[in-house]
């Protein structure tokens, strides 16, 4: 038996291919939109996974360190290390800012880490980990920084010694890792003018600058200029301990807030990126509906354009099943081409998005099923019209 659909497609394959291509681009856009949504959620998850922590210990009554500001004294980690079930604990600071590199500046999240402790980048794609305790940095490759380059962060220049990837903040800003001490300074030490003004303010205050107590004002100024604060303590739990159990002990006895991975994920995804993710999700739905409508219309008009040929088929005695099969096969073929092209272009242009686009295989599979179902449904409409055609139109017109 000859394939009617195949014959028909080959007859005007150029038109068919271009229709498929156009459809593919539309499907590609839809897949990309799904990818953008997934990427957003994944940015949040990557942030949690990359910190390598089982617990986040933050200031009490805050949702820190990502969703709300949190600050802690930097010696708290010593007390945490003494708790049962805590294997490792390390201070960490987060600061979103513009880092200068030559002429341009890049929006980054500066992470202060203790080299070799939780919080440091888990894998590198080039270079090495931080080895000096000052003025070295490991940057996410999406910052565009190169190995050996000098980057200015607040008061100091840092040498980029390593590159990593997929280390981003919840809002997708690439991370730059620098030693903790430098990060504390970058975060809390003001510019020179502010420091000098602050000193003058202390000196002008008669309660602080007392004539009988020389040196008091200077000591006060000095204590204002040093910072012993961090944003969170990352805790790794010893094998065999339950995260919630350890978190409970920290909340109860240390009077600090502690979040487990699940709670942190909840905070990030349900609170921090909730609105923007919902925004994308709604747009994705609309795009999916519009795509479905366009696919249906394309198939419908494609059939309408062939009404005369269908009438001829009917005239020569083709069965309804044969005609319906032809239209269905053409529609599914179009869907298949569209999906292949769509998936391909979505993957090809994904890296050019400034933020991460995650094309999940599951989404692709669901997209494929959806495209096929939509094509099949759209073809039923077309089939109904085709079957109602009067064979007489083939000769009458």
């Amino acid at each position, binding site marked *: 038996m000859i394939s009617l659909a195949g*014959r028909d497609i*080959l*007859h005007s*394959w150029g038109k068919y*291919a271009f229709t498929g291509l156009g459809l593919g681009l539309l499907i590609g856009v839809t897949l990309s939109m799904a990818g953008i949504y997934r990427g957003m959620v994944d940015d949040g998850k990557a942030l949690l*996974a990359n910190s*390598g922590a089982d617990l986040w210990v933050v200031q009490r009554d805050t949702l820190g360190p990502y969703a709300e500001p949190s600050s802690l004294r930097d*010696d708290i980690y010593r007390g945490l290390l003494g708790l049962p079930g805590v*294997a490792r604990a390390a201070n960490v600071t987060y600061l979103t800012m513009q880092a200068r590199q030559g002429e341009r500046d890049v929006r980054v999240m500066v992470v202060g880490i*203790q080299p*070799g402790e939780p919080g440091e980048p*888990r*894998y*590198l*794609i*080039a*270079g*090495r*980990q931080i*080895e*000096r*305790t*000052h*003025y070295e940095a490991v940057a996410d*490759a999406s910052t565009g920084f*190169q*190995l*050996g380059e000098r980057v200015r962060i607040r008061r100091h220049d840092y040498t980029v*010694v*390593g*590159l990593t*990837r*997929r280390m981003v903040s919840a809002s997708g800003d690439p991370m730059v890792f620098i030693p903790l*001490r430098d990060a504390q300074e970058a975060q809390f030490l003001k510019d020179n003018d502010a420091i000098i003004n602050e000193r003058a303010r202390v000196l002008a205050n008669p309660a602080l600058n007392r*004539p*009988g107590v*020389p040196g008091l004002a200077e000591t006060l100024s000095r204590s204002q200029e040093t910072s*012993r604060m961090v944003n969170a303590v990352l805790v*790794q739990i*010893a*094998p065999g301990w339950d995260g919630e159990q350890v978190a409970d002990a920290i909340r109860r006895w240390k009077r600090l807030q502690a979040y487990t991975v699940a709670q942190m994920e909840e905070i990030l995804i349900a609170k921090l990126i909730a609105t923007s993710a919902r925004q994308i999700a709604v747009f994705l739905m609309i795009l999916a509906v519009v795509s479905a409508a366009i696919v249906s219309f394309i198939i419908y008009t494609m059939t309408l354009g062939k009404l005369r040929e269908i009438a001829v088929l009917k005239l020569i005695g083709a069965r309804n099943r044969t005609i319906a099969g032809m239209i269905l096969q053409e529609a599914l073929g179009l869907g298949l*081409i569209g999906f*292949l*092209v769509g*998936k*391909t272009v979505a*993957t*090809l242009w994904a890296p050019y998005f400034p933020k991460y686009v995650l*094309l999940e*295989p599951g989404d*692709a599979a669901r997209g494929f099923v959806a495209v096929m179902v939509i094509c099949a449904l759209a073809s039923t409409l077309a089939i109904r019209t085709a079957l109602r055609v009067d064979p007489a139109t083939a000769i009458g017109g």
Partner: protein
Amino acid sequence: MKMPRLRRILLLVLVIAVLGGFGYIVARTGPLAAVRVTVASPERRDLQPALFGIGTVEARRAYAIGPTSAGRVKQVRVDVGDVVAAGELVAEMDPVDLNDRIAAARAALERAGNALTAAEAQVREAVSRQELAEPNARRFSDLRRQGFVTQEAADAKHHEANAARSALAAAQANREAARQERARLLAEQGAAGKLRANLQLRSPVAGVVIARDAEPGSTVVAGQSVLRLMDPTSLWLKVRIDQGRSAGLQAGLPADIELRSRPGERFPGRVARVELAGDSVTEEKIAQVAFDALPDGVALGELAEVTVRLPAIPNAPVLPNSAIQQRQGQTGVWLLTGEGKARFQPLRFGIRDLDGAAQMLDNLPPEARVIVHSTRELREGDAVKPSEKLAGGRG
């Protein structure tokens, strides 16, 4: 319905392109794709471990010059940057009534001198009286024995002699008191003079003025500094080194000093001292590093990066530090197996150098292929594909 050959070929090319592109993408991304990695093998080389710290330029010997009692500054004779000699008068405190008190003391001393002269004269008079009264008494005693004078007259002369002796003793005591009074006043005058000298602030050493903390007319309390001096040849660096990375720090080790004002220039130095008392708050050890030759124009408080070189470890097995991973509480590396899979190998590491080489403490065969960089976090059994380089850049 035969198609022209050209169109048929075109169609074929198009189909192959779409399918090929899709196939390529499925293989390169998604769950089927292998993780791209770079690998390295352990190598043996001399490891030059080093410690890195931040230091500030300080003077080993700095002097704060100020009064020992509260007072008002009368004059300050030098300014910041002036070179002063040892013992040079650099500032003076207002003596207020001290000069008057010295004058009073001087007058009292003179009076005491006069009193002493008077007492001495009295002694001489008493001596003279005694010299007259004693022979008289002896003579009357002889005359009484021979019966020429009455007993009463002899007794009177005897009394005169006794009185003259007592008067001499009194006069001598008076003279002693006057002498002591004069000594007391002399000492007092000396004290006032010393007090006066104490108000003159003198440099204890030859040095340079680094701060002028008080101006004439301002009041300072005891111990507050008016001027601060330092010995310009005694500049060194107070270096803070993270405790966690300070093993092996000791006096005598060579160091490279990079001043913030002169980036790229390295000055040789040496660890002069390691302080026993570290900083428990910042978790740092403190060491003093001295320049081998003091560069010109070094300013106090200037920031410097100091690299202290530890003794080299010859022929050590090393791996790049980016290969070191933590997995379930174990330190180790990912190995690339013959089947192109990743396998975790627990491994202990020792000393690291500042360029990212870490000494292996456990043995790893030299032909082992260790994963150094990867495009994502590895899991046991991940398919990996070694490549030359994962990202651009020099290195």
